[in-house]
């Protein structure tokens, strides 16, 4: 790109800007205000609104500053009489057909047209004729059309700036919104009467400069000026987009808008974050502590409940020792709460039985986590993703798990010719942007990786640098050749030819980024996959910043934070291993206690111990095990065996209904703290809404409970916890809570060249389903559904009200199924009746069911002992 600069004068001020910028950008860069409607920093300029007219000397007419590039020596005036008059006239034109129904418009108070008319507009209109009115329902004279389930359109108010269409099409690559008609009949609509719904549809509402597009969740709710705005961070996926939470005194947290952070989201939010994270004001929230008596719960005072818990814990401890207790938190809690929970379990209770992962059949052990921590150091910040020339996404449907990540990939495709190669058991769909899909069979990921390594070694697609010589390397290279392509092809379902194409593309790319989905590294073959990817990255010379990198995706809001701050049995806070003496002593001296020495159990082992009767008490902190764990019968059995089940939750979930004691928790808008996103960036969120009366903030509850158990926890507020915990970490030490700033801080991103692991890949050959249960069942998160939380969100329940079985068009044809037919899905474990959704994402022979629907829980079909579940489908 040309980096030369151009000097020009704007309003008697010398301005120096890059050569390819426009007059508007130049003016904004030095703080000169030019009004505009249609221009947006993320979009190409179109010059549709004519609001940004300025006077340029030696040009005969006023020019639209958003489309005119700067030139050397240009003299621009933005405040002459001519310009002021022109703005007034433009606004008069814009307002001719605008209904001026601000009193009933939801945008009122945050409307660009209102503001600019107030600043620049005519005081009177000279237009006396009738205005054009779009009526959607003539019977009721109803002006608003529901474009999609989440978005309303009022065409009368539209000023045809096309921002919504351009955002949808340019940035997100979807073509489900268009501009139709012409002249005064121009209108925004979804083509062919379809629904306007994609995972980013909410952005059109935010960037509509008028009230033409309004969101369902804010429709006729409250005036924006009555709301308090608080900076917060979205917990709904690992990207950690910045949001502004809007809360009202009586109604609580009601909506979110974006808070531009150029390192993460560039002012965009996905619908799951924008709409789905509004659940704190739900009426079903638990509002006071409860103790189970018989079949019902009795509401009690805090001290009584905490006393009851402390008694119970002490009793179990004295009878069976601290190993008979365990704690499972969630990966959506803040860093401070994670640290506090870890401290509570280790110091207060005295056990290492601690985990936060409750939705997997197998978990990474201490060794695998060490590899993970090392690999995580090769990660690349989000803002740099678009600058790669090849991105290899493996093992995740990234559009559902990390929507904003795809925004950066799409930008790369649009602007820099980025090539996205996707290997997954479901297809990736980027709308109009192209993705090369390499669809492998479920469970065939390791076979594919081995195949790739094999091709690269065989065809010598790596450089002859140091690590790739010597006996060890050749021994490893030989070990790869033991498995032949037929076995690999049988396992992963991709032919040798396809694997070679992929391998060559990876090896020949200038710089390549490996994006590794959580389903892959946390799957049954997780640690092997990690090592294989490591070798692949090293072989293709893509290791180490800045030339290449490996991004491990962490799917939930604070998975990485929970790992970092001690929610695994083997790692103490700040990634100190249990057996690492230095770290241990440091923590012991800070906490002023002896840490438990016995080996702890992770979730799966804990459940085994519960089953055996060795663990009698379990503390579930915002963890809905009954809904999440991939074997419903088993978990139900385990939980009902417990003597003491403490559930610290936001909602009265199915798990909570089994509890002995329930404590109310606070959500991310009701407390403050920090989250760690998938890049390792620590970001601060603030308290936006007061918890309902009588609910204590979670950190207060945890501290108070620890005090009751005899541990000295004295914290004034979450920042104090943060200050304490960073002193333990070598990476995060020196981070100042008050100076985390608007962008947050990335920690632990050392620039390092990674050593090849030379891992000898071995895998079990593929076990296909039998004739009884032919279809492998995949599960995962939808864009519109996350955990039990979105069950309590109206918008998300409107878009995705129940689990739909996603099958490929080919299978639908052979089974004679149509969209929305009810089918009976049966596994060896159980059966569910669900509706069918025909999806091009599913390859033939593979079916997908979203998890975490409490009524139609896919976990009832799953068996914890099988790595892959098979089902059969019959028409109900």
């Amino acid at each position, binding site marked *: 790109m040309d980096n030369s600069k151009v000097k020009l004068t704007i309003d008697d001020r010398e301005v120096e800007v890059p050569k390819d910028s426009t007059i508007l950008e130049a003016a904004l860069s030095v703080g000169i205000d030019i009004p505009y409607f249609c221009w947006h920093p993320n979009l190409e300029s179109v010059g549709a609104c004519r609001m940004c007219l300025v006077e340029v000397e030696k040009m005969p007419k006023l020019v639209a500053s958003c489309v005119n590039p700067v030139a050397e020596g240009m003299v621009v005036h933005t405040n002459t009489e001519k310009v002021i008059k022109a703005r007034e006239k433009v606004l008069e034109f814009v307002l001719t057909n605008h*209904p001026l129904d*601000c*009193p*009933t418009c939801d945008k*009122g108070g945050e409307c660009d047209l209102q503001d600019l008319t107030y600043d620049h507009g005519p005081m009177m209109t000279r237009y006396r004729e*009738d*205005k*054009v*009115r*779009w*009526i959607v*329902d*003539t019977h*009721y*004279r*109803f*002006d*608003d059309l529901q474009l999609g389930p989440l978005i309303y359109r009022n065409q009368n108010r539209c000023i045809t700036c096309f921002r919504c269409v351009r955002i949808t099409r340019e940035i997100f690559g979807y073509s489900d919104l268009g501009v139709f*008609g012409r002249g005064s*009949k121009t209108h925004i609509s979804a083509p062919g009467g379809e629904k306007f719904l994609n995972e980013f549809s909410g952005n059109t509402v935010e960037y509509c400069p008028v009230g033409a597009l309004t969101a369902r969740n804010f*429709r*006729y*709710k*409250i*005036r924006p*000026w*009555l709301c308090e705005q608080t900076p917060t961070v979205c917990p709904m996926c690992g990207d950690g987009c910045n949001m502004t939470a809007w809360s009202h005194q*009586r*109604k609580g947290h009601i909506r979110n808008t974006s808070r531009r952070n150029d390192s993460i989201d560039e002012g965009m939010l996905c619908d799951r974050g924008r709409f789905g994270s509004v659940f704190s004001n739900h009426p079903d929230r638990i509002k006071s502590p409860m103790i189970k008596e018989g079949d019902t719960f009795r509401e009690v005072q805090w001290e009584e409940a905490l006393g009851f818990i402390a008694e119970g814990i002490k009793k179990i401890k004295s009878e069976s020792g601290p190993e008979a207790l365990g704690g499972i938190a969630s990966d959506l809690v803040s860093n401070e709460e994670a640290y506090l929970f870890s401290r509570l379990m280790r110091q207060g209770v005295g056990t290492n039985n601690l985990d936060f992962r409750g939705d997997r059949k197998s978990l990474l052990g201490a060794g695998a986590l060490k590899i993970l921590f090392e690999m995580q150091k090769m990660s690349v910040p989000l803002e740099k993703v678009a600058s790669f020339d090849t991105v290899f996404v493996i093992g995740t449907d990234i559009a559902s798990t990390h929507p904003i990540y795809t925004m950066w990939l799409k930008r790369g495709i649009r602007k820099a010719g980025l090539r996205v190669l996707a290997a997954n058991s479901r297809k990736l769909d980027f709308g109009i942007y192209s993705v090369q899909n390499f669809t492998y069979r479920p469970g065939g990921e390791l076979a594919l990786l081995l195949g790739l390594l094999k091709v690269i070694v065989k065809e010598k697609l790596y450089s002859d640098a140091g690590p790739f010589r010597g006996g060890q390397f050749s021994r490893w290279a030989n070990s790869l050749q033991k498995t032949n392509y037929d076995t690999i092809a049988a396992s992963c379902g991709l032919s040798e030819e396809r694997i070679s194409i992929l391998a060559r593309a990876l090896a020949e790319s200038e710089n390549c980024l490996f994006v590794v989905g959580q389903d892959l590294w946390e799957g049954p073959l997780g640690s092997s996959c990690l090592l294989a990817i490591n070798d692949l990255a090293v072989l293709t010379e893509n290791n180490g910043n800045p030339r290449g990198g490996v991004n491990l995706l962490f799917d939930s809001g604070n998975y990485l934070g929970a790992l970092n701050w001690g929610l695994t049995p083997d790692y103490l806070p700040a990634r100190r291993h249990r057996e690492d003496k230095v770290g241990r002593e440091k923590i012991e001296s800070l906490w002023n206690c002896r840490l438990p020495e016995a080996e702890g159990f992770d979730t799966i082992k804990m459940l085994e111990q519960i089953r055996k009767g060795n663990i009698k008490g379990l503390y579930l902190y915002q963890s809905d095990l009954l809904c999440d764990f991939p074997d419903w019968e088993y978990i139900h059995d385990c939980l009902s065996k417990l003597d003491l089940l403490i559930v610290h939750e936001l909602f009265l979930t199915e798990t909570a209904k089994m509890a002995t004691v329930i404590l109310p928790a606070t959500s991310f808008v009701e407390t403050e703290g920090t989250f760690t996103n998938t890049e390792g960036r620590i970001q601060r969120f603030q308290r936006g809404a007061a918890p309902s009366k009588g609910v204590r903030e979670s950190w207060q509850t945890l501290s108070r409970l620890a005090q009751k158990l005899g541990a000295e926890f004295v914290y004034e507020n979450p920042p104090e916890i943060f200050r304490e915990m960073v002193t333990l970490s070598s990476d995060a030490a020196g981070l100042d809570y008050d100076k985390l700033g608007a962008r947050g801080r990335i920690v632990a991103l050392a620039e390092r060249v990674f050593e090849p692991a030379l891992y000898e890949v071995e895998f079990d050959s593929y076990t296909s389903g039998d004739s009884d249960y032919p279809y492998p069942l995949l599960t995962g998160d939808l864009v519109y559904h996350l955990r039990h939380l979105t069950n309590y969100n109206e918008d998300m329940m409107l878009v995705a009200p129940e689990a739909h079985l996603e099958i490929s068009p080919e299978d639908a044809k052979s089974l004679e199924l149509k969209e929305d037919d009810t089918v009976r899905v049966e596994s060896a474990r159980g059966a569910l009746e669900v509706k069918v959704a025909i999806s091009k994402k599913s390859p033939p022979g593979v079916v997908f069911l979203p998890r975490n629907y409490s009524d139609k829980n896919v976990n009832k079909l799953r068996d914890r002992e099988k790595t892959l579940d098979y089902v059969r489908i019959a028409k109900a």
Partner: protein
Amino acid sequence: MADLIRILASIFLAIPKGLATTFKHLFRKTITIDYPRKPAKFAPRYRGLHYLTRYPDGEERCVACGLCAIACPSDCIYLEPEENERGERVAKLYEIDEIRCIFCGYCEEACPEEAIRLGWEFEFSQYDRKNFVWTKEMLLENFDKLEKGRAKGFIREKKFQFRAEPETYF
């Protein structure tokens, strides 16, 4: 002696003089009113108890825009909008805390629909402070029962409408 006469004269003359003033006023029109027995009369723009107006067909005018609430200097109005079956914006809650209100009339001035008005009613004393919160139903009742007749001629009756888009064939 003469002094004595003058003094006496002033005493005896002063009485009829004073009484003359009394009698003069006796036949004038009274300024005070016999309040509890006779109805009070007000200036047309007197600002008393609030009411919410209706259209002649009985429909509520209030669109719950919230301008009255933001115009109110004593912050005594709270309202929440909702959507009615025709997709229009109407008030779900409309509460005025009359004990907090300073009867400045800004709400009435801010209202784009001429929905909230201050009427002539001033007899609304209560025994409990809680009862001073007038809800939407009570405010509409004020209009129906008290102010409907009196307010005639002060309120625009027609609904604002604008032209519908002519049918397009292609």
